[in-house]
Structures are given as C-alpha cells and as structure tokens.
C-alpha cells in the first residue's frame, strides 16, 4: 500500500498552553452565557421584564389588605419572586436548550475538549446571576413603589437564601431535563410555557393559595412552585399568617423536603435523558 509521507505537524514554539483551569473554564462559560442572554432581547424582556410588569400591574390594581396588617403586595411579591426564579431557571433553560441543540451548538461543544460539566456550570452561573438580579429588581420596585416591608431578622434572610437556592436548583435541573422533551427548536416554548402558566395559577402566585379549591391545592402540592411560594411567605409574611396555611404553619421542613426531592428527580432525569444532539442526529 502506498503511504503518503508528509512532514509531521510542526511543534508549536510560540503559543504556550493557555487553557484555563476548570474553574476558569466554568467562569468563561458562564460569562459567555450571560452575554448571550443579555444580547437576546426576547429573553431579557421575557425573563426579567415579565415578573416586573406583573408586580406593577397587580400591586397597582389590588391595594387592599388580605389579612390584618398584610397588604396584597406583601403576599404577591412572594409569588412573583418564586415565579421569577422559576422563569430564569426552568423556562429559560427549557426554551433555550432545545434551540441550541437544534442549531448544533451543543454538538459542537461536545466535539471540543471542554469537560461536559463546564457547559452545565455555564448555564447554572447564568441562572444564578439572572436570578439574583431579578430578585433585587423586584424587591427594589416593590419597596420603592408599593411599600414592601423587607425581612428584618437574620433567620428570615437565611430562610430567603435557602428557599431560593433550593428552588432554583430544582427548577434548573427540571428545566434541563424537560429540554429533552422538545423535538425541535420551536417546540421548547410549547412544552414549557403551559406547564409554567398552570403551575403559577394553581400554586398561589396570583391568588391567595388557601382560597383555591382544595383539589387544586393538592395538585399544586406535588410540584415545586407551591413550596417555593410557601417558603418565601415565611420570609415576607408575619408568623401569624402561617396559621392560615393548609398545614397550619409555613412548614419549612416540608418545603425543604419537597424541593430536595425535586432536585433528586430533576438530576436523575438529566442524567438519564439529556441529549447533546437532536433525534435526527441519532
């Protein structure tokens, strides 16, 4: 057999190894994701704008007290923060990952020496940053325009922290998992949006949860959003309000357990169903 002999690839003298360490790679990926997010007008408007507009509308329409000393805004902000956290994680990922997969962006990343986890880390960093920004915006608007009272105790702020973190983790994992259900770029939104909307209505975001029919409350209790709302109510509403909750208190332990279980379910689904390529790619 004829062998074509050619000179071996030149050994590079100039370019030294410039690849960043694992943390550096993850941060670079996160920065790129945030940049892509900020430049995509529809996702900025949809993700950050939607909860803000809802707060402006609802808090302006309903200014009565829903319980002695508890304004509707004080209640509604908890639902909107929870909704916002679900939007930046679950909806954002569930809609955008199918688009990137369809465009071959994911396949291309898999063809490089980038460790797989770096790509996920980039998404998580983007979700965390947008989640923090969105929460800060919501709080700022509500405090300035609608006299929202911020929590005053360290315990309340800690609860705020862990409920948000656990909720975002569960929603991020579920968003990555549900992205594999969409067969094409366009169908991501069709899969995710109805789920998110229905959950918002039955989980006590727009309406006081205990006023909902009990079967609806029971369905909502199967999903994370209801528990995120409830956990945040423990932060923003007086202890006395907890007595009116279905369980007779804010049930923070149960909030932690249910959100933790959803993290596990989401992680298992991600590990078993995640696809770097579209179905037609095999």
């Amino acid at each position, binding site marked *: 057999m004829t062998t074509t002999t*050619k000179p071996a690839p030149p050994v590079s003298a100039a370019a030294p190894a410039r*690849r960043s360490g694992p943390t550096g790679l993850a941060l670079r990926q996160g920065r790129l994701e945030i940049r*892509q997010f900020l430049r995509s007008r529809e996702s900025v408007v949809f993700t950050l704008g939607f909860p803000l507009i809802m707060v402006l509308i609802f808090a302006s329409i309903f200014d009565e007290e829903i319980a002695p000393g508890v304004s509707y805004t004080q209640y509604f902000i908890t639902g909107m923060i929870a909704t916002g956290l679900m939007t930046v994680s679950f909806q954002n990922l569930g809609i955008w990952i199918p688009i990137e997969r369809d*465009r071959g962006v994911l396949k291309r990343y898999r063809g*490089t020496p980038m460790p797989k986890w770096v790509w996920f880390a980039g998404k998580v960093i983007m979700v965390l940053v947008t989640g923090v920004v969105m929460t800060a915006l919501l709080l700022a608007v509500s405090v300035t325009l609608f006299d929202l009272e911020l929590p005053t105790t360290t315990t309340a702020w800690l609860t705020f922290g862990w409920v948000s973190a656990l909720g975002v983790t569960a929603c991020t994992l579920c968003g990555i998992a549900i992205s594999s259900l969409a067969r094409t770029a366009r169908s991501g939104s069709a899969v995710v949006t109805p789920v998110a909307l229905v959950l918002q209505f039955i989980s006590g975001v727009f309406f006081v949860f205990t006023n909902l029919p009990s079967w609806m409350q029971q369905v909502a209790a199967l999903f994370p959003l209801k528990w995120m709302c409830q956990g945040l109510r423990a932060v923003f509403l007086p202890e006395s309000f907890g007595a009116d909750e279905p369980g007779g208190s804010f049930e923070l332990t149960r909030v932690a357990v249910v959100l933790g279980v959803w993290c596990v379910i989401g992680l298992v689904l991600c590990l078993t169903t995640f696809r770097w390529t579209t179905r037609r790619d095999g």
Partner: protein
Amino acid sequence: MSDDVAIRVRGLRKTYGDSLAVAGLDLDVHRGEVFALLGPNGAGKTTTVEILEGYRQRDAGEVRVLDVDPAHPTRDWRGRVGIVFQGTGEFDELSVAEVVHHFAGFYADADDPDKVIERVGLTAKARARTHTLSGGQKRRLDVALGIVGRPELLFLDEPTTGFDPEARREFWELIRDLAAAGTTIVLTTHYLDEAEALADRVGVISGGRLIEVAAPNRLGNRQEALATVSWRTPDGTLDSAQSATPTALVADLAARFGGEVPGLTVTRPTLEDIYLTMIGHR
C-alpha cells in the same frame, strides 16, 4: 498500530432498527494524508464519519482513531481531533471573534484566534454577529472552529456545500495549506472535482461498505479505461468508437478524411463517470 496510521477500521457495523447502515467496513487513513470519502446519500458515509468522530456508537468492529477508540473519547483526544460538521452551528448573539476566542480557550495548544480568523478569510467580519454572515461565511466560521485547536486530524463533512466557485477555490487552498503542514484530513464530499483536486486517495462507500480505495486518477482503473473517439461522418451523423489506442485511430481517421476530421473529440471517463458506474448508476 504503526505510527503512520491515523485511522484504522476493521469490520465496522452499525444498524438502525432493521436497516444496516454500515456493513463490515474496512478503512485505513495514513498520517498526513488527505482522504476523501465519496458515496451517495444513505450509503453510510455520515454514519461512518460520526462513529470515527466519537458521536455514534458502533455495533461491531474495531476502530482506532489516533490510537484511541472513539467510542471512549478522552479530553486529550478531543483536543487532537478537529471537526467541521455538515450543518452550521449558529451562535446568534455572539460575534465571530468572540466565538473563535471562546473555543480557542478549550484547547491546551490553541492557535492564535485572530490568525485563524484571518486564515479563513473572515477578518473583515470578525466583529459581526454570526447570524449576519452569509452561508459561505458561516461555513468558514465552522472551519475556523474546526482548526483553532491545531488538530492532528481534521474531519470535514461536505465542507463546500453552498460555496460559490471562487470561495471554493479559496477553501481548497486553505485545505492544501493545512495538509502541507502535516494535518491528516478526512473529507466527505459530493463534488467529484473537489475530491480530485484535494485528495491523495479516494474511498467509495456504497451499501455500507468501502468498495474501492485508490488515488483519484486510478479509481476504477480510470488510467486504463478506453478512450472514446467521436467524429462526424460525411453524411452528417455522429460516429464514435472506443479504443485503447486512440492516437492510432485518430491517425487512421485523418488518413481516411484526408486531413481534418470533422467534429473530432477524444475523451476519457471523468472521475464522475467512473464513480457513477461504481455505485451502479450507469
């Protein structure tokens, strides 16, 4: 496995459901060689290449690519293999320079991203968002991402589809440069002239098997094929004859016509003729 073998495939098989896509394929590609894979759609070309790239799992057979089994790609191996996919991966919101710089960061020994952009002729478009590029420019970006890691082995899947003739020539120059620098190149293409212009050897896949491998001018015993001599007879009809000694035939005709032979042509089968005969279309 000797040092001068870049790819070694023995008895490769892959089925999708009931259909056999690759049916016992053998292939050797030497280091530093430009190897073109030809074959009709559905012949198993893309499946074979994607198995070599580590995107698909095989059902049976032995495969070594740069001494690694691509079914278990390592990070180091990914860094030594460059891939230019069939479809273009879009990064809508990012500029050409941003994407190439980002991907360079994944490789331990990446080339200078700006030089790579210049090499593929996109310097004028470096700051343009990738979605504003024309089809041919997007393809150049694909090539830039395929070579930015200084691969030892480069896969090009139908790289010039949609190029105008001038862009095609420029692209060929780039491939020749890479080959001259020692990069092993595996190219799939539908353009026979492209295979002839670039490849040291051509392999024809049909029915999931490699049915012949040869230098482009030797494929299907092309160099021994009979020449077709045709001319116009005195009553105006076209006559032709196949001959192993066309010069003698032409001399004979010249004597018969007493000088100029009207409508004289002497042709040998083109690579395309040979190829179409091989895959059974002629």
